[in-house]
């Protein structure tokens, strides 16, 4: 479904030299697959995800979605930013409504969808709040809601649960799993949590420190449907060790 072909990217640094970030990254993500990218800070995960969504152009190489070059106009994809990028002058409600408004959906349709997603994310009662009036974790929930509200086929999420407390995080992991199973979503996911990656992913892609190359791609064949309780099994511990070893080698 998604092909990342020989993607290379560098940025101009402060001193006008080139900072090589991605070096010939190649992989393929299947339809309905949960594909996680794991790598140390600053290695280029966000950059890679932005290139896949079409927000950044690679220096060379290409991204194909169902065989065609990626386009931002294609609204079947949702992107959730690591920096959240909530609109400060819009309320929670209006922030979540934004993608639907931009699609030109009518008011009653929008209202129904938002009510549903607000309920689902546990944001009830905060509809009229502005982003700065929310805690970091709640802001993250709003960004997740905004990414899910359009009912996308492909979901790109950049550390979506990083600001949540351990309990909420587990609840949302469970919920994300359920949505994905129900809707058959294809997900590209970035996280720093090995446990989260193991729990959610079909495959985990491990990147090297910058410039990022693919160090390894590991298939996670834990049985499905997966629930958070899986974390206590021996198989899970075995996989956890494998991933940690690959991250550090």
């Amino acid at each position, binding site marked *: 479904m998604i092909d990342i072909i020989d993607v290379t990217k560098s940025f101009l640094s402060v001193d006008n030299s080139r900072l090589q970030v991605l070096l010939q990254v190649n992989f393929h993500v299947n339809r309905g697959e949960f594909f996680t990218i794991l790598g140390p800070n600053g290695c280029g995960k966000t950059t890679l995800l932005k290139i896949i969504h079409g*927000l950044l152009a690679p220096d060379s190489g290409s991204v194909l979605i169902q065989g065609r070059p990626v386009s931002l106009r*294609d609204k079947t994809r949702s992107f959730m930013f690591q920096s959240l*990028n909530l609109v400060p002058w819009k309320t929670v409600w209006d922030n979540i409504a934004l993608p639907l*408004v931009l699609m030109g959906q009518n008011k009653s349709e929008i209202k129904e969808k938002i009510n549903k997603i607000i309920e689902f994310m546990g944001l009830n009662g905060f509809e009229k709040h502005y982003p700065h009036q929310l805690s970091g974790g709640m802001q993250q929930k709003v960004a997740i809601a905004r990414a899910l509200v359009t009912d996308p086929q492909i979901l790109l999420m950049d550390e979506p649960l990083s600001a949540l407390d351990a309990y909420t995080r587990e609840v949302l992991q469970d919920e994300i799993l359920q949505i994905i199973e129900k809707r058959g979503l294809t997900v590209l996911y970035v996280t720093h949590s090995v446990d989260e990656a193991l729990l959610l992913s079909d495959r985990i892609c491990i990147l090297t420190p910058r410039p990022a190359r693919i160090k390894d791609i590991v298939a996670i064949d834990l049985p499905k449907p997966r629930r958070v309780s899986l974390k206590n099994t021996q198989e899970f511990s075995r996989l956890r060790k494998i991933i940690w070893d690959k991250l550090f080698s």
Partner: protein
Amino acid sequence: MLWRDVRGIILRTVPLVIFLMGWQVASYFTRPIILPSPTAAIGGLAQLAIRDELQFAILTTLTALSLGFATAAIMGTFIGMLIGWFKKAHTALSPYVYALGSSPSFVFIPIIILWFGIGFEARLVYVIFASIIPVIINVMHGVRYIESELIELAKSLGASQLQMLRHIVLGGATTFLIAGLRLGLVRAFTATILSEMFFRLEGVGGLLSKYSSVFRTPEIFGLIVVIISLSQVALGVIKLVERRLLKWKPQIT
């Protein structure tokens, strides 16, 4: 009302009372044609009010001011957004906008009289012309300093240029817009009074001119107080607009 508010009001009234008392005392030692007493000034105003002259003048002034300034605010926001957003437009036009902004607008009065006469239209044109530039300049800046993350968000959602302007750029420029409105309002008010004094005599400015020419000092002083009060009312309206438009901002107290 909080004690803090009450104290604020008292503190602010003290200088005014002292000023009025000083004025009253000073007027005892001066000829009335040079410095009439505050009570005489109020009397002069009352005379104007009894003949309905004052109310009518205030209405005339406020009509030209609000119509002219509202037009300038809307047009200025629109133009400022376009010049700020489209790089080529910015390169091509911004020097001229700055040039107009830094020259005194009254140098254009002769041309405005030549083209639009000395009636209501001419005053309106002059008010718009004088106050639109600060709005344009500020909105232009606001658009150029908009957070890149928000532009990126709009892009990620596949927004068109028009949607981007409407949903992201306009909101992102509000802080600057308010600053532009404040500056613009001061200019609009000056232009209104000026045009009333130097085109056909109209409104409060016209009255001021009229009574100046016959040395009716109490009325002159009274009218000055009226003009200052009107400017405060106008700024109060801007404050309300600001509170409405910026209620999403974290309050720093």
